[in-house]
């Protein structure tokens, strides 16, 4: 077991399931997602019935119930695609860094996107969703590169601890910058604050539509990197020995992850821990083959986020708890559980 945290048996229970069972799990997950989607539209501060849903889908917004549904549909859609993006992005990051603790939140990638957006908003007067998305992706990429570089210096390369610490320190630094930019600007302070928490509450079909092309590109890149990730999991040397172009594979996969998570952060604000928790759960069910792991992470991520949003809407009626908070409250204990299970060698 290397100090660089190679994903091997002692850490994660790898169960080699026959192909048939993997398909079953995937279908099951899709089923759960479907149920949650419907529930998300039905449940909330107000209870609505199925006929209201059908009517609202048809475009009519008569009455509070139908209006409520009309608001929930884009919200649900956003939750689903955001969860999918974050889930897959987390799985890719864990594969690229061979680090069971990788997650866009922990690695400071979310905050890099946030800072870029905030700077764009405050100093360059950006206002369109598309411009935010581009800027967020750039910010995410820079932050990811930075954290990875800093975390890999020295003995042992990018061990889980060094990466997590580099990420935490970078996050702290970036957070200070965000505060420094926002604090004097009372005009944008309120808006930024609510976005910073990370939620799907302010969703509209507009912003969702604008982010969709970016996400599709991101998903595509990630899917294509799946085989590369399988090789990378064996370690750089072995992967190269098997004929894999290590640098390209890693670069492409990272690009996909960064695009996904940067684009989504621009719309929802930073949501942490989805990318951490989901891939672990997926690995327990369907193993480490990334060709299955990535799509499964996407589906499970979507389910998790939708579920979290539902909880957020029910738990604090008549108010709401934003999704970013729920995922942190669920995800952090899970993170701690993973840390406790690992045989972490003292540095």
């Amino acid at each position: 077991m290397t100090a660089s945290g190679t994903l091997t048996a002692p850490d994660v229970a790898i169960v080699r399931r026959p192909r048939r069972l993997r398909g079953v799990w995937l279908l099951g997950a899709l089923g759960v997602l479907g149920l949650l989607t419907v529930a998300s539209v039905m449940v909330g501060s107000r209870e609505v019935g199925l006929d209201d849903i059908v009517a609202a889908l048809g475009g009519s917004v008569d009455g509070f119930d139908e209006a409520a549904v009309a608001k929930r549909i884009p919200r649900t859609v956003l939750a689903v695609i955001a969860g999918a993006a974050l889930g897959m992005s987390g799985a890719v990051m864990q594969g690229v860094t061979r680090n069971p603790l990788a997650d866009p939140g922990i690695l400071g990638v979310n905050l890099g996107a946030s800072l870029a957006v905030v700077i764009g908003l405050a100093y360059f007067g950006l206002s369109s969703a598309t411009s935010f998305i581009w800027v967020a992706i750039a910010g995410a990429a820079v932050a990811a590169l930075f954290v990875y570089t800093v975390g890999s210096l020295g003995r042992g390369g990018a061990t889980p601890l060094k990466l997590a610490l580099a990420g935490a320190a970078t996050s702290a630094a970036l957070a200070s910058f965000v505060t420094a930019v926002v604090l004097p600007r009372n005009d944008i302070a309120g808006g930024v604050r609510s976005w910073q928490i990370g939620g799907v509450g302010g969703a509209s079909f507009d912003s969702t539509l604008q982010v969709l092309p970016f996400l599709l590109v991101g998903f595509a890149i990630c899917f294509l990197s799946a085989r590369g990730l399988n090789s990378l999991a064996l370690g750089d040397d072995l992967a190269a020995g098997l004929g894999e172009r290590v640098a390209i594979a890693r670069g492409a996969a990272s690009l996909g992850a960064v695009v996904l998570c940067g684009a989504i952060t621009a719309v929802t604000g930073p949501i942490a821990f989805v990318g951490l928790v989901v891939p672990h759960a997926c690995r327990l069910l369907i193993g480490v083959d990334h060709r299955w792991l990535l799509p499964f992470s996407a589906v499970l991520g979507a389910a998790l986020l939708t579920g979290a949003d539902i909880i957020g809407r029910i738990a604090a009626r008549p108010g709401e708890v934003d999704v970013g908070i729920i995922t942190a409250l669920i995800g952090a204990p899970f993170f701690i559980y993973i840390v406790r299970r690992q045989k972490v060698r003292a540095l």
Partner: protein
Amino acid sequence: MNASTVHASTATTDVPTQRREITADTVASSRRRRATRRRAVMAVLGALIVVCFAITLMVGQTFYPPADVIGVILGHDVAGATFTVGRLRLPRAVLAVLVGLCFGIGGVTFQTMLRNPLASPDIIGISSGASAAAAFAIVTLSLGEAQVSAFAIVAGLVVALVVYGLSFKSGVVGTRLILIGIGIAAMLDSVTAYVLSQAAEWDLQEATRWLTGSLNGSNWAQVVPVLVALAVLGPVLVGQSRNLSMGQLGDDTASALGVRVERSRIVVIIAAVGLIAFATAATGPIAFVAFLAGPIASRIVGPGGSLLIPSALVGALLVLVADFCGQFAFDTRFPVGVVTGVLGAPYLIYLIVRTNRAGGSL
């Protein structure tokens, strides 16, 4: 060469004894040299603190000459100056120094104990706990100053206990503790964010400043608890400095040298957390002071010897200077936490780079 009593040696041959004496002299003199350097550095830091303290009292929107300032300190009533200097600047400067001392010594204690300069109380959840409790106390419960402090302190200690407990699996591994601390910090930060999001506007302002660390509105009521904490817990911590140094060699070696490792660790944690929590309760979590004071002190004092007091002094200096800059160096008035955050960030990253390159510990 040595004026001390002649050491009765069992060896009778001259050359080995002589050589040993020479070696002993070399060892002693290099030790004395290092001690002198330490003392010199501490003296310089102390002097700098006094100078900056004086400057913050004199310079501001109105300039008050030294005579006026001294008059106010002595309790005389000086026209104009008594309020500005006595009620506004003096408590602010005193609080800055005290809080800086607390963060400095608390931060380096954790970094030494966990053998990692990146293991700072702000990262492993203690500051997050104190902040979350304080935000909750201010926004949701609308409590007064003293009660907010009490909340923060209890929260800080509880978090430390939880993090320590969760990372205990037949002994504590520094790595695991740091990672768990990061997780807990994330949870608590989200709680804070939620509490703030529920805030009415005017509460929001104060709570926000609170969260980034600010000395605005400092008064004597805030100074007293920090002073008491420092007076009680400070000596406790300094008393453990030798045990802390021994702990750097690893738990096994330290135990073999006669250190009661577990007991010392508990005392040290309570004292350090207490200091940090008291300070956070007064001013909010002033970013990066706890993180940087130790590494900065280590660079200027050199290796060997306890870093506790030098780090405290560095911390005090950092807060004083940063607050002054935050008030007058830029167009907007920034709270001290933002200044330390922004100015500290590049240095922090540089430290991580250097640490990783050397693969080292504190």
